């Protein structure tokens, strides 16, 4: 039996004249995600995209999982393909649901007939298929209002498609339609969630990670790679830039007042991230900061980090509770990795008593006591990067 996947656009349908740009971007994203699974053709019609495998060994199970993670999709379902012949449609329908039917008690059949030349009208198709299902599975009952299973038969130009319940898509808008942003990835719970949320709003993600060996380990860096890989399953391909940060952290420690360690460190991270972002076409920075979560994320502290760079800093988690963030981290499957216990650069030299109400003038004055720019240049020159493909 030949099977395909039908995809319903999400918010895209609202996008007036830009719609086809968004749709094309989404198809491109899906195509890229499925590229290693075999040859596949896409058809666009109204608000449905049909994914049509061309090779025998195409892994539809995997394709379905990946499609479930592509932003811009409201819903999707697998469908069996049948010849446009009522006896054939009936046979395929019975066959298609024979294994899974035991999960349902009630059902109804819907028919859509875009080929008006098909001899049976929609209500007639429903009746026939419904009757066939009932006689094959006597335990089933018809419920037209609130059925467990909706069987949809679509009569298209070339073939007929038979599908069950639609699955909910990842929502949002296609990655890449909102430009590019650089996410500061620490390895904690928050930054991957922030990346996920911005990718869902169409932002193409690149990652910037600060490594401070030997205070942070290779394991900590691997952890960030693992997290980036998890995010890339939703966000698609991600370039991860790793900035050597030890020298700068030591310089902060040696030259700045302890109460400002973290805030100055974050300001310098922003400055470097902005430079990296500019070099690679990103127009915004993204962080996992959440208001009041830690000393460096109070309103006054955020004001101090904000003015370190000119680019907008997007903080999708700013108003979220930790519990909600954790829930999203579980949903994106990053939580278990995030809580692996490796030191990250944010926790290496945490001051005992950080200033939670830093004044901008004081922070700027403290930072000005040392000229960090040569070190920043050196760090930028020694950036390593890795491409995480994201399928």
């Amino acid at each position, binding site marked *: 039996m030949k099977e395909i996947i039908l995809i319903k656009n999400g918010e895209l349908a609202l996008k007036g004249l830009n719609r086809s740009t968004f749709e094309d971007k989404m198809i491109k994203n899906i195509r890229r995600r499925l590229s290693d699974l075999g040859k596949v053709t896409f058809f666009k019609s109204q608000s449905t995209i049909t994914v049509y495998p061309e090779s025998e060994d195409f892994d539809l199970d995997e394709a379905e999982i990946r499609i479930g993670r592509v932003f811009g999709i409201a819903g999707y379902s697998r469908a069996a393909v049948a010849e446009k012949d009522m006896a054939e449609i009936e046979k395929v329908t019975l066959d298609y649901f024979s294994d899974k039917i035991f999960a349902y008690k009630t059902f109804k059949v819907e028919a859509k007939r875009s080929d008006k030349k098909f001899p049976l009208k929609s209500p007639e198709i429903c009746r026939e298929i419904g009757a066939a299902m009932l006689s094959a599975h006597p335990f089933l009952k018809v419920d037209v209002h609130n059925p467990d299973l909706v069987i949809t038969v679509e009569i298209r130009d070339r073939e007929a498609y038979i599908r069950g319940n639609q699955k909910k898509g990842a929502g949002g808008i296609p990655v890449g339609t909102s430009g590019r942003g650089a996410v500061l990835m620490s390895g904690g719970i928050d930054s991957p969630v922030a990346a996920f949320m911005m990718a869902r709003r169409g932002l193409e993600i690149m990652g910037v990670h600060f490594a401070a060996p*030997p*205070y*942070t*380990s290779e394991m900590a860096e691997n952890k960030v790679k693992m997290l980036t890989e998890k995010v890339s399953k939703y966000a698609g391909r991600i370039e991860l830039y790793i900035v050597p940060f030890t020298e700068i952290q030591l310089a902060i*420690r040696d030259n700045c007042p302890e109460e400002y360690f973290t805030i100055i460190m974050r300001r310098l991270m922003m400055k470097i991230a902005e430079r990296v972002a500019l070099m690679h076409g990103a127009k915004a920075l993204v962080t996992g900061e959440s208001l009041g979560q830690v000393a460096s994320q109070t309103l006054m502290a955020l004001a101090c980090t904000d003015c370190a760079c000119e680019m907008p800093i997007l903080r999708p988690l700013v108003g979220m509770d930790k519990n909600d963030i954790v829930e999203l981290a579980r949903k994106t499957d990053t939580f278990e990795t995030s809580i692996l216990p*490796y*030191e990250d650069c944010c*926790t290496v030299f945490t001051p*005992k008593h950080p200033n939670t109400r830093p004044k901008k003038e004081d922070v700027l004055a403290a930072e000005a006591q040392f000229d960090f720019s040569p070190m920043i240049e050196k760090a930028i020159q020694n950036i390593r990067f890795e491409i995480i493909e994201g399928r």
Partner: protein
Amino acid sequence: MVYLDYSATTPVCEAALKKMNEIYKTNFANPSSTHFAGLRARQALEQARKTVAERLGAESDEIYFTSGGTEANNLAVFGAVEAAKKHRDKKRIVVGAIEHSSVFESVKKLANDGYDVIFIKPDRHGNISAADIAGAVDENTILVSLMYVNNELGSVMPVKSVKSIIKAKNSPALFHCDCVQAFCKKKFTHNTLDADLISVTGHKIFAPKGIGALYVKKGVKIMPRSFGGEQERKLRTGTQAVALAAGLAAAIEDFDTENYGEKVKEVNRYARSELKKIEGIIFNSDENASDYILNFSLPGYRSETVLNYLSEREICVSSGSACAKGKLSHVMSAVTDDKREADSAIRLSFSHLNTKEDIDKFISALKSAKEELIKAQ
């Protein structure tokens, strides 16, 4: 590479490799099969069992192969407790507070299930007093689990007193001894320990990972944790790893307890004397500890950082504790309240393959770490 982490694991010795290679290639049949090839595999398995048994002064039918120390410990603890249900309201379990996590976490689960688990506190160097055990064991005690050599500190437990304490208290308790770090390294038999259950593993003594054994004294009954199959007299079902078992046996035969012990003692003494010269060093392992393990702290220098630093220089050691984000090791937090000491613990563990040069390289790297690294708050 300077490898000072042999208590984490060892490479596989030539003798074991050769034996395993032979079995994988030419004696691959299922030891439960009835045909001649199965019989040959069974013979190899039983030969291996005999070697393990002999090392423990036991009979072959007292040895049950497992996947390693953790499984042996789990089987011993849960198997003994399950079998003790016949004693109805007897619910006390006595264990050392610094047992390996495979015992520690198992009894913590049993505590959650309503068992009265008593943890015996060690002193600053991980030593436990027999008197404390005597104070904890009563007639309601069903299990005492005490390791022979502690894996983080090398401290040697008063295991030889346990059985007499149990007898004196008129308790039905079984005595389980986790001998993972002592097996082949210390001279002992089941008689010297007077234990009912003994766990051992292969990969600390140059055998492969994935094989271990539990000794169960004849007449002692414990309940299985796996079902389906007749293997290991139904106590540990599943097709046996014949080659790994034979590898374990070969490694046991190859392990020269006295000679290796001498070499390790020398290396340990040298490392200790060199470490003494470094200002600020606190020894967590005392002089009575096993020569195979030497644990110290350098307060202010977090283990994780020092480990990373040494690792960059291809020196492998181990930390007793995890970093600030993770939990402190239960062993280090049991022996000291000083977080800086616990958080800076480094464990060196040796084998006969180590030389003074290894120690020199390590000491010099540690000295430069101390110079270069910034002290934590």
